[in-house]
């Protein structure tokens, strides 16, 4: 699937869970030019037993579009060899995965920075909304956006061209 020298890219908006090992294998198998792979997995927390599930709503079409645009920006800023971004929607229970970012590069700094950038941007730009379902059967309402997530995304605009090891 992925040959050496080729930039592979996988973007998916899906209801089903994903398998971390399989998704990394999809990017790295049969390649010998990748030196560093960073993954970020976001999981649903039970908030000390108060949460029974998160319900993720998304804007079909725009979700994939924003994810593609964010990935394209990362590819421009860092010398990446492979990128994967998967975001789930629907009902997700505590302990289940919500989002996956995988970045592969020859060197570790690029892989770390690109994965951090992708998560910061996905948080503030990808059209997904979380609603809480509480363990007592009530709805906890919509999760509020956090100001520090906006700040985390904004610092990339101010950042200089990243160093690469």
């Amino acid at each position, binding site marked *: 699937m992925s040959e050496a020298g080729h930039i592979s890219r996988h973007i998916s908006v899906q209801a089903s869970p994903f398998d971390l090992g399989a998704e990394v294998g999809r990017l790295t198998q049969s390649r010998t030019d990748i030196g560093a792979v960073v993954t970020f997995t976001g999981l649903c927390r039970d908030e000390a037993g108060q949460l029974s599930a998160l319900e993720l709503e998304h804007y079909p079409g725009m979700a994939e579009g924003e994810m593609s645009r964010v990935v394209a920006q990362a590819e421009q800023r860092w010398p990446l060899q492979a990128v994967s971004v998967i975001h789930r929607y629907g009902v997700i229970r505590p302990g289940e995965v919500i989002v996956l970012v995988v970045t592969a590069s020859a060197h570790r700094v690029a892989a770390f920075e690109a994965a951090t950038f992708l998560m910061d941007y996905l948080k503030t730009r990808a059209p997904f909304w979380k609603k809480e379902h509480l363990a007592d059967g009530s709805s906890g309402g919509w999760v*509020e956006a956090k100001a520090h997530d906006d700040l985390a995304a904004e610092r990339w605009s101010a950042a200089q061209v990243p160093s690469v090891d």
Partner: protein
Amino acid sequence: MVKLVYFAWVRERMGMAEEMVELPPSVLTIADLALWLAGRDEAAALAFANPDVVRAAIDKHHVSPQTPLKGAREIAFFPPMTGG
């Protein structure tokens, strides 16, 4: 006619996921449209009570309140995103 789509608590407050509307000639920007919708009925007044919080997209791209609507086929309103 333009298609309006709503998500999350904007959808819940509007009481609908989408609608087709004929925009009056005075409605030129996203901000104009939010103001026009807010004056239309109680549900929309609630959804757009705090217009600074509502985000918008035109044809599935993020836009600012000042963006002109000209040529738009699908306009979306939604709260700040909480994915990831």
